């Protein structure tokens, strides 16, 4: 079982609060976008099963979201919780770097 490195230990066992809140920003349904979606889903299932929520946002459809979340590069994976906030840019094909970027430590 893989565990998240958890900064909010005070918030205890409540799964809703200790889970990973992830947002993936992509530009339309390009191959790279698809790649990124597949990659993050696989990583989450593998390492964060039952502990994460993932929202995929197409910035072509919602340009205001790019502004709101300060997105420049696409795709960008945003980890809002647990804090601190992290961004991982790219198609997420380099799994080690994704995990490192999300502060997920492998046991």
């Amino acid at each position, binding site marked *: 079982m893989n565990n998240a490195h958890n900064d909010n230990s005070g918030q205890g066992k409540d799964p809703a609060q200790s889970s990973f809140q992830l947002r993936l920003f992509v530009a339309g349904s390009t191959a790279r976008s698809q790649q990124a979606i597949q990659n993050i889903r696989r990583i989450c299932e593998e390492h964060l099963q039952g502990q994460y929520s993932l929202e995929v946002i197409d910035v072509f459809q919602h340009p205001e979201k790019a502004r709101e979340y*300060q997105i420049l590069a696409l795709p*960008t994976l945003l980890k809002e919780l647990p804090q601190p906030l*992290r961004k*991982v840019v790219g198609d*997420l094909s380099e799994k080690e770097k994704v995990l490192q970027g999300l502060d997920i430590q492998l046991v």
Partner: protein
Amino acid sequence: MDKGKDIADNQMEMLEKVPSGIPGFDDITNGGLPSGRSTLVCGDAGAGKTMFGMQFLIEGTTEKQEPGVFVAFEESEPDLKKNVASLGWDLDFLCRQKKIAVEAMHISSEEMTEAGQYDLEGLFIRLDAAIQDVGAQRIVLDTVETLFGLFTDAHIVRAEFRRLLQWLKDRGITAVVTAERGHEGLTRFGIEEYVSDCVVDLSQTMHGQTTRRHLRILKFRGSGHGTNAYPFLIGRHGIHLFAVTELGLDYPISKERISSGVPRLDEMLGGKGFYRASSILLSGTAGTGKSSLNASFVDAACARGEKALYISYEESRAQIIRNMESIGIDLQKWYTNGLLNFHTVRVTTYGLEEHFFVVKELIEENPPDVVVIDPVSNLLQMGSPEEVKNLLTRLIDLLKSQGITTVVTELITGGNPMEGTNTDISSLMDAWILLRAIENAGERNRVLYVLKARGMSHSHQVREFVLSEAGISLVDVYTGPAGLITGTARYTQEAQEEAEHKRRLEEIERKRKELERKRRVREAKLKEIEAQFQGEEEELELAIREAEKEEEKYLQTQEQRKQMRSGAEGHE
């Protein structure tokens, strides 16, 4: 003049330009920035790049109706608005009016990891949204090279940057791209390679305590442009460029005459005083009354209901008012009723260019009818005589173009004040009055000459200049230092005759009169000598005759005695 012509000639190529919003910049580029293309503005931190970009956008909100997007990679939106507000622009208002959109790219590389392939489509999407939001035709990317520090893959950033420029060009948007100067290349990341249409360099150097700023156009494809390093300032309204061609000699001239404040001086100036919108130089050694004449001129202007600006590089307002009170000139009342304004500052407070700019702003805010500057020679502390002369040329052109009459004083130290001025500015001036102190019979007196007065006949006499509680008065002098003539002033018939020419003629006339006088003196002396000689001759001849008579008598007496003696001998 020649430069202006060159620029005009090169303009054969019809490159469309848009006004930059930088005063003076459009003059040296003959129209502004290349329309629908990108301009790179590079310089060190604090060189004025952001200001340049902001002025460019503000310009688009005025007559041109070209809305713009400000893309801030470094400053936050509130910071940007605060900075812009300090220059008198309400960015919030312009944003609400949809004339400007601010797109702040707030990113820190600390929170970011790269894992796989990416591009900067997010940036494009955001720019596209902002451009559409206001219908932008102008854009500023400040400072776009921040992207190079943000992402580790320089290849991607370069490719995306090149794509961005093309993307903007395709949309016909005029862009200003700012970049920080690099140690080796022009910019840290060599982005000048991509921006090929126009490159502007802003530089700043420290000169003593002051910063000097210069703008240079390194490249302007398809257009002529000035190649100088043009001095500029960041003043209360942003960047202001001093193009040499900014002001020409093409200003209206006035035939109106205004009083110097001293009736006898007006009399010396063709009976009417100075021409309006002319420039007058008062030079003199210390304590010869330059400031008093200034005050008198200002006092007369205010008494006519005109506005005056008194610029002093030496004394405070309170000091000037107090000193002038002592010679019966009440400047306080003009200051109180608002006709008279003072600008008193140490010359070392600003650089030379800034002095120009400050005066320009002062006269724009509250246009005066007359200006006095006391003394300009202090500006020599801030630059070479050539630089000071250059500054004064621009300043005087500016004041004349506004119809302002200017009196400038100059302190002369040492040497013969007749030979020239320390700042060598007399040639710029329409009139030149010299004040001197002469010591005579244990007294130190002030005298005044009018050395030059363009376009008017003027007296060449020396007047004694008297300061008393009743103000300034001029008194005739009959003796002066070396070869001065006295008599009545001549009035030349043809006033429009060129002044230098006339001055020469008058000089010849003056010499002729002097010669004539000397000739008469000689003749008088000859007559006197002749008369004296005749008198003496008669006297001597009389004396000779008397002596001869005496001698004759003596001889006769001798003869008689001889005869008497010989007769007596005959008796014996």
